[in-house]
Every structure is written in C-alpha cells, then in structure tokens.
C-alpha cells in the first residue's frame, strides 16, 4: 500500500508541466478555441514529448507505461486546460487496439505511438445515452472484410481523426450484449461522411455517417473490450478532472485573498472560507478516487467496473460542486469568457457528461453492490 510517485513518474509530471508552462498559455488555448477548436497540432506537440505513445507497448514504438503514468499525464493536462484529444487518442485507442489481430496492431499502433495517426472511439448512438450495449450500427461480412452502416455522434476530435474504432452489430438486436463487434474504419474510406463542429469545452467533435463503409475487424466479442477501454477513458478523465479542480481551486484561493469587498479581502468572510473548505473536501475526495480508478484498472472485469463506476460518480459530484462554487466565489468575473476559470468550469461540466453522468454511474454502482464494502471489497 503505497501512494508515492516514483522519481520517473515525477519527471514525467515535470515534463508535461514544463511544456504547459512554456507552450500552452490560456491565451493560446483561448485562441485555438475561438478559431474552431482544432487541436491536432497541439496533440502533435504532446507526441514530441513521447506522450502519444505512453500506453503503446514498446514493441510497437511506444513507452509501454501503465495507468499511473497515464494518470500523472492526464492530471497535468487538466491543470493546464489542454484540450487536445489525449485521453481518446493516447489511452482509449491503444486499449481498443490491444484486442486487434497482430497485423492490425502492427499497422496502427506505431502510428498511434508517434501521433501520425489519430484514432478515436466512435461509439455514441442516438437513444443509447451512456449504454455501451445499445448498438444499432450494422456490420456485414463481405468477402474477407466487413462493411458498416449506421451513424455515430459526438465523436471526439472526429474531423481531426484518421481512423475510428466503431462498435457495430453483426448479430442480435440493439440491447443484446452479444453480437457487438469492434471495427476499425479509416476516415478516407468510401461511405464515410464526417461533419465536424466545435464543442463547449473548446475542442472539436463530429457526426460520423457510415454507408457501407469498409472496416477491419478488431474483435467479434467487442463489448468486454469496449467496456475496458471506456474504463481506461474514465480513469483518464478522472485524473484530468483532478488537475482541473486543483488549478481552479488555486485560482479561486488567489482571488479570495486578493479581491477586496466592504474594505477587506474576500477571504476574511467566514461563509466563503467554509465554502473553500468544502471545495477542498471535494477536491481531495476526487483525488483519492482518481487514484482508486487508476489502481483498479488491472482488476478482473467485475471488480474493475464497480470501482470505475464508483470513481466516476465521485469525480462527477466533485467536478460539479468545485466548478459551480469556484465560479460563484469569483462573482461576476467568474462568468466571463475572458477569464480562464470559466473554461475550467466548462470542461469539468463536459467531463461529467462523458462516459456516464452521476445518475448513470450510481445505477452502475447500485447494480454491482455487494454485501461487503470498501476499497478492498
């Protein structure tokens, strides 16, 4: 039982933080968002640090690091409000591709590792909300390949990506757990239409339409792979949220200590002081559960799912409270576009809606509840 980071992990953290400090000011982030949210170039800069290949096995040109290193990086990216598709491109994609046949891995993982390819999960369907088993997109075997027909929405960095991992159904009806395959679809393939747009958190997403698009099979039994990859994504955004909250709290503390009203610093008002104590509480609970999320990723599916749902539920609660309260504590300035804090708040809000909101996660926790409880239950 040990929650210390190794020296290597601390070095990794420092590297990311230095890059943020030097190269990713709020002004740059804001300008990118204003210009439409394209961040492929930023992702390229992260790749130069080797970060795109963080989770890719060394055999495929990556660093082969584990969940703790991913957590360190994501937390720092959150702290810097970096809106590049890191969780999706560098963490979720390798987790999905790990289930692919060897030749497909060999073809794509090296490109994932050096960011010459951005591969993202395209899973969201209309009416599915946060359910991963509600898949209507159809997969048809054709010759020695597959074609996919259907529509996927709000695909992260969808019009900046080079390929998509698409859950599609080769058997069964929309809610069946069985019969869901995972496929790789290249953006340039015939039958693929992409409509991109900016997002609330300063990046981009896209609607993906598949009309008999050619696809490569990753796995016929896709749901377990998908669930694992989404849990990897959950751990990633949990860590990112901790970084966001940590920085937003620090900004709020600075504001309260500086800003005067009725002749004294805001930080001298007890009601606001107690609010900050509550913010600190939520931050530390979230940090604890972010650790929990990353450290439980390697568990068997049932225990992993339960832990990740618990973690995401806590992070969602904390993200909403910390985001809302830090805006409130800033007063008017907190609701302006030019103030960085409001963008931290918006990103925290969108994280809540990614991979399942609080009601969804609570349902997952409830469905997996056991007689015993606790970290090791």
């Amino acid at each position, binding site marked *: 039982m040990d929650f210390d980071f190794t020296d290597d992990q601390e070095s990794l953290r420092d590297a990311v933080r230095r890059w943020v400090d030097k190269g990713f000011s709020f002004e740059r982030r804001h300008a990118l968002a204003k210009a439409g949210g394209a961040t492929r170039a930023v992702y390229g800069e992260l790749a130069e640090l080797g970060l795109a290949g963080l989770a890719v096995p060394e055999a495929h040109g990556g660093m082969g690091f584990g969940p703790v290193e991913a957590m360190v990086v994501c937390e720092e990216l959150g702290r810097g409000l970096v809106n590049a598709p890191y969780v999706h491109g560098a963490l979720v994609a390798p987790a999905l591709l790990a289930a692919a046949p060897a030749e497909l891995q060999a073809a794509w993982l090296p490109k994932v590792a050096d960011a010459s390819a951005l591969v993202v999960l395209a899973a*969201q369907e*209309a*009416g599915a*909300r*946060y359910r991963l088993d509600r898949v209507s997109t159809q997969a048809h075997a054709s010759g020695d390949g597959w074609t996919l027909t259907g529509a996927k*929405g*709000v695909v992260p960095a969808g019009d900046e990506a080079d390929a998509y991992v698409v859950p599609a159904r080769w058997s069964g009806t929309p809610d069946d757990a069985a019969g869901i395959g995972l496929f790789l679809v290249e953006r340039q393939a015939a039958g693929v239409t992409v*409509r991109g*747009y*900016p*997002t*609330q*958190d300063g990046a981009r*997403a896209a*609607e993906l339409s598949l009309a008999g698009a050619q696809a490569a099979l990753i796995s016929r039994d896709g749901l377990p792979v998908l669930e694992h990859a989404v849990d990897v994504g959950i751990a990633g955004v949990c860590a990112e949220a901790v970084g966001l909250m940590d920085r937003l709290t620090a900004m709020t503390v600075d504001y309260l200590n500086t800003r*005067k*009203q*009725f*002749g004294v610093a805001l930080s001298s*008002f007890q*009601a*606001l002081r107690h609010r900050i104590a509550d913010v600190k509480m939520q931050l530390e609970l979230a940090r604890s559960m972010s650790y929990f999320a990353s450290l439980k990723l390697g568990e068997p599916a049932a225990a992993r799912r339960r832990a990740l749902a618990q973690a995401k539920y806590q992070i969602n609660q904390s993200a909403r409270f910390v985001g*809302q309260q830090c*805006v*409130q504590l800033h*007063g*008017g300035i*907190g*609701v*302006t*576009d*030019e103030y960085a804090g*409001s*963008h931290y*708040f*918006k990103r925290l*809000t*969108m994280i809540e*809606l*990614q991979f399942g*909101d609080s*009601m969804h996660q*609570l*349902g997952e926790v409830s469905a997996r509840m056991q007689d015993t409880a606790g970290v090791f239950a």
Partner: protein
Amino acid sequence: MDLNFTPDELAFRDEIRAWVAANLPKDISHKVHNALHLSKEDMQRWARILGKQGWHGWAWPKQFGGPGWNVIQRHLFEEECALAGAPRVVPFGPVMVAPVIMAFGSPEQQARHLPGIMSGEVWWSQGYSEPGAGSDLASLKTRAERRGDVYVVNGQKTWTTLGQHGDWIFCLVRTSSEGKPQTGISFLLIDMKSPGITVRPIITLDGSHEVNEVWFDNVEVPVENRVGEENKGWTYAKHLLAHERTNIADVNRAKRELERLKRIARAEGVYEDTRFRDEIARLEVDIVALEMMVLRVLSAEKSGKAALDVAGLLKIRGSEIQQRYSELMMLAGGPWTLPFIQEAMEAGWQGDHVGAAHCAPLAATYFNMRKTTIYGGSNEVQRNIVSATVLGS
C-alpha cells in the same frame, strides 16, 4: 384563507390570457419556449405591442399612464405572459427607473421620459455596478463633477445588461467624497448618445453578448438630468431595489421551464427513468413551494395586514431553481449537449442539428444561469440580509 382567486380575478386572468394569445407573435413565443436566441428586434417588438396596449408599464399607477392594477392583477398578468412564452420585459425602463422618476423625478423629467418607456420606444440601461463594486455598491468610484449647468462624468460601469441596445442609462455616480460611502452619491439620467460614452461588450462563458462595460470619458450631463437632490442618490437607489418584489423569484418562468424540461426528458427517454424522474419531481415540489411563498407575499401586500419579509428568500430560492432546471435539461440532453454551434440556437437555422434540435441551447443556458446566484445581490449577500432579519442583529 382561500387558495383560489376570486371570480373577478379569474375573469381578469381570462381577459389577459385571451389578449396575450391574440397579440404575442408566434415566432417570438416559439423562440422563448425553445430557449432560442432573442434579437433586439424581438424584444422591442413585444415591448411595443405591450406599450400600445398601455401595459409595458404594467405595474404603473393610472396617474402616470399605467393600468393601475393591484398586486394580484400584476401577478396574473406576469404569469400569463410567462406561461404563454412572452419574452421577459427588459426591466430597466418600466420596472426600475420609472418608479424612481415617478417618486423623485421632476414633472419635466416625468413628462419627458415616462411616455417613451411606456411605449417601448426608448431602451434603458442600468449603470449601477462597477469593477471593484459588485455586491458592495456603496464603494462606487464613477465621479460626476459639477461644472456650471453640467456634470462631467468619468469612470466605468460594468455588467450593464443589454447596454449595447441602450438609448438612455441611469447611473449612480459619486458627487462627493465626504462622509460615509453611501452619502455623496447622485442619481443621473444619461443619454447614451452623449460624446465620451463607449460601450464595450463582455462576452460571458456561454459565448453570448448580454452584458457590457460602459465607459465615461468627460461625458457632459445636464444638471436637469439629475433625479432628486444631489448626494441623495443612495436613497433613490434603495427605493428602486425595494421595487424588485416577487418577480425576482421568477416562479412563472420556472413553471414554463419545468414543462419544457418534461418535454425534453420525454424525448430523450429519461422521463420514465426513476432516477431522472425523481429529480423532476423534487424540482416540481420546489416550484410549488416557491409559488406558495410568492402567493403569500402577494396576499400580504393585498391585505396590508402583515408584511412578509422574505424578498431575500425569494431571490435565493428562485435563482437556485433556475439553475437546477437548466442543469436537469442539460443532463437530459447528456452527450448531445457537447456541440457548441451558435447558429443552432437561432430560430429557423437550416443546418443539421446534432442530436435533437432541443439539445442545441442546453449547455449554453446552463452556463449562462450561473449568473443568477451572483447578480442582483449575490446569494451570499442575500443570506447576510436574511440572517440579519432573523437574528435581529
């Protein structure tokens, strides 16, 4: 004790309901019911329709051209407008500055300004807040120096809602630095076309342009545009704030938005989900309780028997409810609220929506609503006020 309105009141409500149904343009109510962008023209069109009927100043007494309604009638009018999807009347003219002009303005000022406010022709803005003087209004720094027949105004106002459309602005300015901060403040009416005035947009976190900074650089304001006495502006300002009554609770809008929330939840497939539906049910109870509190205030005002000092509670609860329904709408939209496509929030947009069309404004509205617990005296300031009343100290 009787929960029901009298037959006369019900007849009045029916009359208003019929008039609103006949006169509120459908394209405008469509925007309101769907939280789409309202242009200046939309707002002004409705203001003029009301003005023509003599109802843009619906709370005004007859002597100043108003309908002379009692508190119940005013409430019913507001309720019918809100439920029908009328835009909120921009309050700075008819609700805020007009009562001050009526109570403290000269006959000349009344004759000059009130008709334009009632007709909806003249757009007023409010110049209260300053950088560094948010909830602490008395510490304002914009100063007006008397030079003969004019005041020369220098300084900056901020959070001026819809000030980009303003023809006139009423301002609190410092005319003396002696004594307590509250003394030495005067109340000026300023033509926004005056040389030296610059309006700069403040874009809020939802990407909209709703508030502004207003800069005054040696702006000359005729002394005749001062309301009441010099250095007594604080008194008039307090009068104005006292006129913000039950409508700060905005319960009628909340009822309309709750109906919208139910429509969205149904369309998104969560209306029958126990967890989501419970949250709607909780909000429904909150809104009924708030409405009952509003009705209690109205009843007390009507009878004059016992005043109810719950304005702070109405502000706190009303704003919390606004934030909550906007939050639940966003949660109903879920993953489909991620896109930020500003054109999709315009009525009649011909592009392809991402998810259902109703999802387009949900996140932006949620973000925008964070202001409600900050402005109009933050909820922290309201709790200060409430506790002072309760504790008597």
